[in-house]
């Protein structure tokens, strides 16, 4: 049975909505209409318990699904529920116009009624996971992940890249911490990670899905092995390379021009020398490298040398290193090494200040350069094999830099430590344990994961693979003459649907027919109730954009009535068809609202929806229509004024 439940929210919503008229006008759409004063409280939930049975389809007209949906999901016996946020999206934003607000509520509740008609039970995902882990990279972070997981009873294979050399690891990674701390930590981890199986080789191919990856490894002795693992952690190291200053400073030409890693040897043999240490202004150093520089110059000065640091920005998390350097007599000079002339055994160095043409000259015995820290040289190849994205500096890119520091663009593959960016010891250890945690959570995950998934119509599918390429999560694959869906990788975003040119993909509960029917009904009902008044359709993603619209309600940032929000799983699911359909049905404006740039919860929807709107605008232009009737924009909860700004009617 189709039932409607309305909530008055402590008898307040009737101030802005004519609940009686709503019941009267919408009564015939539902088998029953019940009103409650507090659906979200225990008594309300108990009421729903008694009123709703397993086979009912229900519409809840109350507060946002983001609030009431949470307790309801646990209590309701049916999965066929459509939420209509008559509080945040209607009453609280249209306080000035009760009649139109009531009309809007009626229109949205009718939309809810159509929405539930198309709803299907969610599909359960096979969560089978191989409880074995592959860690690539045998440095500090790799050892830490192995150590964490071995101690938790997980089977770990630790793969060291062929060129990786354990013996000089500590020496080559002194930028992470002072050498004795680093050495002790590495030795400690070598002991605690003993239970991990260690291999030397290269990953040559990856197949399978998150939780069940099949990895082919070419071992150093030329043999190949096939490994089945549940998750992969990439913990590769960094390499240093000469900075762009190298040429100016005669690096490679004179043996007295060296990199900072050689300063310690240099200073231990000699004292009473003058040493110029130069930073490269074109290179953005990390705090780890800044701290390293400070540690090294302090030591050199303490050995009785005169140390001048030509710098423009020193980044350290330990201010005391800076202080100690000054106290040990290091001279800090702001400026860039512009020119070096050899004069007998010495160098005449010209330092220039970038802003003012101020020049200083120093005559020194040695020039020491701060090198650049680059990702391990095999990173690009490994990323290609594993299908991971790289950032501008060639490090492996995280999925979302604020909150998901170890997740990559690919489910089931994580990064740790210096694979992400040069890190100090402390941060690298945290990063590694962070990756261990994510892996471990996957391994012990219980319960079920459910969602509406894409369903592919084999007859209609042209095998163009547009969906395979569009899916941000590698959840669609070509398998001979079929496109197959991999539910474990899927995030239920629907991006594949908008990519398919033959519309061979249907998304459960969000079928094409359902969108078209809903848009049509909104247009028709609007005309019926509001006549010629212009209306706007907002196709909002159910993540940030919907949150922004909810918050517009909470903050009372009102906007014109006749604005109807349709929630899409992701804005990337919206195709030109829904946009044009909106215009056909009479909408004055269609707005596609997505997450902030680069912030799509499904990775690419913000960008895709911008492209789709641009494309549709071009189409409109070419047929002589006004392209400004449609637009794409981002909305977030921290900007609850976005609806107000975007939904302004003309005339």
């Amino acid at each position: 049975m189709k039932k409607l439940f309305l909530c008055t929210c402590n008898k307040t919503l009737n101030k802005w909505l004519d609940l009686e008229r709503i019941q009267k006008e919408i009564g015939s759409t539902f088998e029953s209409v019940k009103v409650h004063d507090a659906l979200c409280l225990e008594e309300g939930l108990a009421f729903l318990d008694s009123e709703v049975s397993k086979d009912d389809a229900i519409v809840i007209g109350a507060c946002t699904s983001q609030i009431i949906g949470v307790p309801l999901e646990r209590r309701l016996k049916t999965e066929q529920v459509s939420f209509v946020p008559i509080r945040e999206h209607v009453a609280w934003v249209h306080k000035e116009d009760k009649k139109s607000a009531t009309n809007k509520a009626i229109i949205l509740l009718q939309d809810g009624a159509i929405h539930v008609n198309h709803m299907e039970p969610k599909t359960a995902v096979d969560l089978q996971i191989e409880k074995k882990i592959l860690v690539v990279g045998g440095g500090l972070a790799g050892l830490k992940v192995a150590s964490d997981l071995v101690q938790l009873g997980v089977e770990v294979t630790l793969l060291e890249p062929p060129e990786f050399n354990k013996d000089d690891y500590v020496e080559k990674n002194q930028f992470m911490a002072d050498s004795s701390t680093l050495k002790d930590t590495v030795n400690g981890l070598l002991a605690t990670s003993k239970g991990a199986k260690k291999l030397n080789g290269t990953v040559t191919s990856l197949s399978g899905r998150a939780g069940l990856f099949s990895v082919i490894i070419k071992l150093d002795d030329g043999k190949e092995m096939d490994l089945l693992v549940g998750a992969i952690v990439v913990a590769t190291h960094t390499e240093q390379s000469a900075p762009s200053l190298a040429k100016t400073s005669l690096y490679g030409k004179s043996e007295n021009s060296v990199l900072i890693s050689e300063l310690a040897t240099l200073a231990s043999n000699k004292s009473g020398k003058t040493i110029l240490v130069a930073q490269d202004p074109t290179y953005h150093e990390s705090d780890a490298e800044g701290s390293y520089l400070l540690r090294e110059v302090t030591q050199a000065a303490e050995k009785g040398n005169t140390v001048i640091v030509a710098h423009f920005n020193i980044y350290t998390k330990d201010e005391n290193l800076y202080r100690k350097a000054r106290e040990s007599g290091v001279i800090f000079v702001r400026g860039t090494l512009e020119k070096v002339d050899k004069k007998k055994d010495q160098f005449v160095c010209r330092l220039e200040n970038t802003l003012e043409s101020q020049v200083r000259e120093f005559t020194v015995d040695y020039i020491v350069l701060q090198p650049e820290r680059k990702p391990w040289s095999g990173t690009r190849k490994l990323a290609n094999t594993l299908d991971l994205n790289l950032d501008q500096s060639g490090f492996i890119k995280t999925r979302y830099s604020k909150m998901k520091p170890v997740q990559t663009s690919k489910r089931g593959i994580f990064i740790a430590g210096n694979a992400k960016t040069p890190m100090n010891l402390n941060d690298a250890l945290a990063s590694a344990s962070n990756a261990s945690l994510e892996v471990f959570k996957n391994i012990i995950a219980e319960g079920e994961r459910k969602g509406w998934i894409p369903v592919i119509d084999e007859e209609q599918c042209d095998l163009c693979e547009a969906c395979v390429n569009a899916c941000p999560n590698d959840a669609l694959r070509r398998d001979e003459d079929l496109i197959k869906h991999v539910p474990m990788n899927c995030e239920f975003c629907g991006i594949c649907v908008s990519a398919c040119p033959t519309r061979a993909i249907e998304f459960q509960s969000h079928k094409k027919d359902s969108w078209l029917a809903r848009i049509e009904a909104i247009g028709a009902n609007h005309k019926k109730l509001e006549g010629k008044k212009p209306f706007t359709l907002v196709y909002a993603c159910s993540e940030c954009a919907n949150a922004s619209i909810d918050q517009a309600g909470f903050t009372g940032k009102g906007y014109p009535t006749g604005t109807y929000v349709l929630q899409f799983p992701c804005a990337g699911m919206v195709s030109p068809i829904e946009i044009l359909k909106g215009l056909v049905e009479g909408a004055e404006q269609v707005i596609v609202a997505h997450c902030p740039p680069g912030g799509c919860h499904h990775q690419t929807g913000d960008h895709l929806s911008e492209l789709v709107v641009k494309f549709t605008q071009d189409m409109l232009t070419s047929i002589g229509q006004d392209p400004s009737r449609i637009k794409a924009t981002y909305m977030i909860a921290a900007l609850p004024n976005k609806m107000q700004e975007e939904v302004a009617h003309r005339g």
Partner: protein
Amino acid sequence: MTKNAVVIGAGLAGIQVSQQLTDLGITIHLIEKEPIIGGLSTYLGRVFPTGDCALCLDASNEMYDGHHRKCQYRGLVTEKKNLKLYTQSEVKSITEADSGFKISIKSEPRYVNLDRCVVCLECIDVCDVEVADEYALRGGTRKAIYRPIPQGVPHAPLIDLEHCTKCGKCVDVCKVNAIDLEEKESSKTINTDAVIIATGVEEKIPLDFPGYEYRTSDDIISHAELARMLDPTGDTNGVVTTSAGDVVSKVTMVLCVGSRDKTAFEYCSQACCTYSLKHAEMLRELGIDVTICYMDIRVPNHSFHYLESSIEKGVKFIRGKPDKVVVRSGKPVTVVEDTQSQKLMQIESDLVVLASPLAPLGIGNDPVSAFLGEYGFAQRVVKERKVYACGTATGPTDIPTSIAEANAVALRVYSDLKGGI
């Protein structure tokens, strides 16, 4: 037996560690002294490195499949089965017991029952008492029954009894009987296996740093105050104004005020360079002129794009730490020697924003301060298998680093308490 842990402080780090541990099957008691969770993030609006909301959380396995981050208002913290949140609560004592601790906490009354309130906001509407809003900078007010910020969690309002006249109007309109003006403070003792300190930092109010006339002028402000003005839901609706109410056209920012300073806070506060750049960029987008006076610009790689785009958008940089900011004919003037040109400059602007140090909140708070070390910050593992710390409680830093550390500590606590699969 199910293990449990007490987390002190519900900032982003405390929330994150609690979420992770509940997902791993450990029961968490999360104790927060404020009426809403989020800590510093409740002031910030939008944050680097992603430019989206400060009040965003990582999803958990129990709710939303651990898939995506979610806004705080979506119930992630309040609806989890094994996560018990105590707001307006402080730890009174921590005593070692058999294998763990006995922790006694005291909770102030909210006067609004969280299990009864439907957040209709009617009570706020009918309340006649208006007082200055702690979250407002330019004279904004709130009622005696109020919600600190719109996205605040728990959603239910609270009553500031100091200003409440007990007129009973709110009680009358609250037909669900959520309001109890006679609610009393309560105490509770929790037996726990481990304690996690996530008491975070505060932005030090720059009252006592000589030379910066924060005390005398309301046009010399801190970054948290600027963040409130930039917030479209704040009392200025996102417009940056002077204390006289004029729209600002020129802003000077001073970095390292009180930080990296032997006479004040010795350490570098880590996050201020980057949030100064973030704010500079936001101000430029409003067409406001921005000059930043700095010693070093310390920006982590994940936020390097803020430096690039600040330069691109025309933010001016002066290398030098201002000796003082004075007020001349009502306007703040920053006196600074540009160490590059060695010229003494006097920059007049409408507003000066000081990057004040991030100072530990745990300090001075008795049971907690016993676990703190140098400068009032704690180690990640304070006491093997018993006391841990994460987030800015271990040192000033930004959100990504706090979150990463919270995750790392969660794993550590889990393996210490549970041992393995």
